[in-house]
């Protein structure tokens, strides 16, 4: 939705780009901090549209627009906090058959934290198969669900489809996310 408004005119696009760039630079100079609007996937998966506006959750001390981690996954959030969790963007797409494709991008603060989370069976259970999405990913098939975890930089990324018939589509989308997420 934000991008749609930005595209209304060339000037607004330039202005928005400038503000975002300045904001990004300011954040870089202040140290890494989650800027969800910069990391959202650039496009929906083929055949899917956004089911609702993306949601953003931070920590209890630094909540984001939709609150903090416990609003998102209740007590399950503790394990992410143990690995330095800072924020998460939660994006849900739906197709015409009401199948869901969910993407959660967790900012774990550092690449080391993200890898530690990736290795933690409380986040990524042991029952995975290894696939490649540009990097090594853990894939889970619990009929009818199929989901993937992988790491890019300081981000731990989760992508899930409710219909395992769309597994290949999800893997392709994860490959795109791997390229897009900074």
């Amino acid at each position, binding site marked *: 939705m934000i991008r749609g408004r930005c595209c209304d005119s060339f000037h607004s696009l330039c202005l928005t780009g400038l503000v975002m760039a300045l904001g990004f630079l300011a954040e870089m100079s202040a140290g890494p901090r989650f800027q969800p609007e910069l990391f959202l996937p650039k496009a929906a998966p083929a055949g899917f549209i956004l089911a609702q506006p993306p949601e953003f959750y931070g920590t209890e001390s630094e909540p984001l627009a939709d609150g903090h981690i*416990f*609003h998102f*996954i*209740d007590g399950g959030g503790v394990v992410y906090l143990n690995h330095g969790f800072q924020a998460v963007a939660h994006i849900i797409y739906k197709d015409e058959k009401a199948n869901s494709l*969910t993407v959660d991008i967790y900012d774990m603060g550092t690449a080391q934290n993200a890898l530690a989370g990736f290795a933690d069976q409380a986040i990524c259970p042991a029952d995975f198969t290894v696939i490649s999405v540009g990097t090594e990913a853990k894939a889970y098939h619990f009929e009818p*669900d199929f989901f993937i975890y992988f790491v890019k930089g300081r981000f731990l990324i989760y992508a899930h489809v409710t219909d395992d018939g769309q597994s290949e589509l999800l893997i392709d989308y994860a490959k795109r996310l791997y390229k897009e997420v900074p």
Partner: protein
Amino acid sequence: MICRTRRAFSLWPAGRLFAAAAATLLIWALAQGQAQPKSKVVTVRNSKVINARNQVDLTQAKAMLAAGLEALTGKKEAKAAWAALGLKPADVVGVKVNCNNWTITLSPPAELLQALTDSLATVVSANNIIVYEASVADLESSGFKRNSSTSGVRFIGCNEGAGFDDEERLSRIASSTCTKLINFASLKCVEQGRGASLFFKNQIGSLVEKDMPKCHGDMDFLASTLAKPSLKSKTILNICNGLRGTYKRGVPWYWGGLILGQDPVASEWAGYQIINEKREQEKAAALPVPEYLKIAESKYGLGTCTPGHIDWVKIER
């Protein structure tokens, strides 16, 4: 003869003492039995209720619920069973569901929720049934449409108009609006020292937001949740959706069953046993009986997690 008589006579005081002690013990045991009747927990399983695509059969779900209520109350008809649990036609009954979509969706299937609300509607009007969660967004993310109208079953969030009771630090849906409550949990293993997320953690969603995180590390606080006067006095049934649950964190299986009980501690204990049965099959270490259940029994008197005090009725359909 004389000798035997004299001997018997000499033993008489000891025999009388023994008999008196035995009688005292018997009376004490009977009194204990009367004072502490066993907590009944019913589990109903049916392999036809859910398939491997996570699709639920409404007819089978209704039959399972009916069988569970009958086993729990001894009443065959739903109306009589609910009456035995204390539900009256004028009641407003709140159903606290657990809408959880982290990794694997464990929210109650719509068919199972319908089975419950249809059954309740044999006693109360549909609009006097309130399905609620911590927030409207939680309900909607699980496919339930918000309804606060005067028609049909209501679906609302604690974050809406009713607000929170300052004294109990509890949603007014539970403390004021509803006269009876049903704790409708999901069979969910979270591990990480917190075991499973069942009836106790389900009611975290009824608390004021600031208190929710306390439940994650403070076992006494978690145990005390169900001791809040409104939750303790109004809850007429604890029911757990175990059609699909998790036996390890984020790892699901189709157990195809329900847990029903009036004692939340005993019902939660049964949930742990069910998860542990699966964990044993999968060669995972058993979850111990958690500290909060022991506290709930010993400190708050909410029920029992002592196996000998639980009457577990298992129904396989």
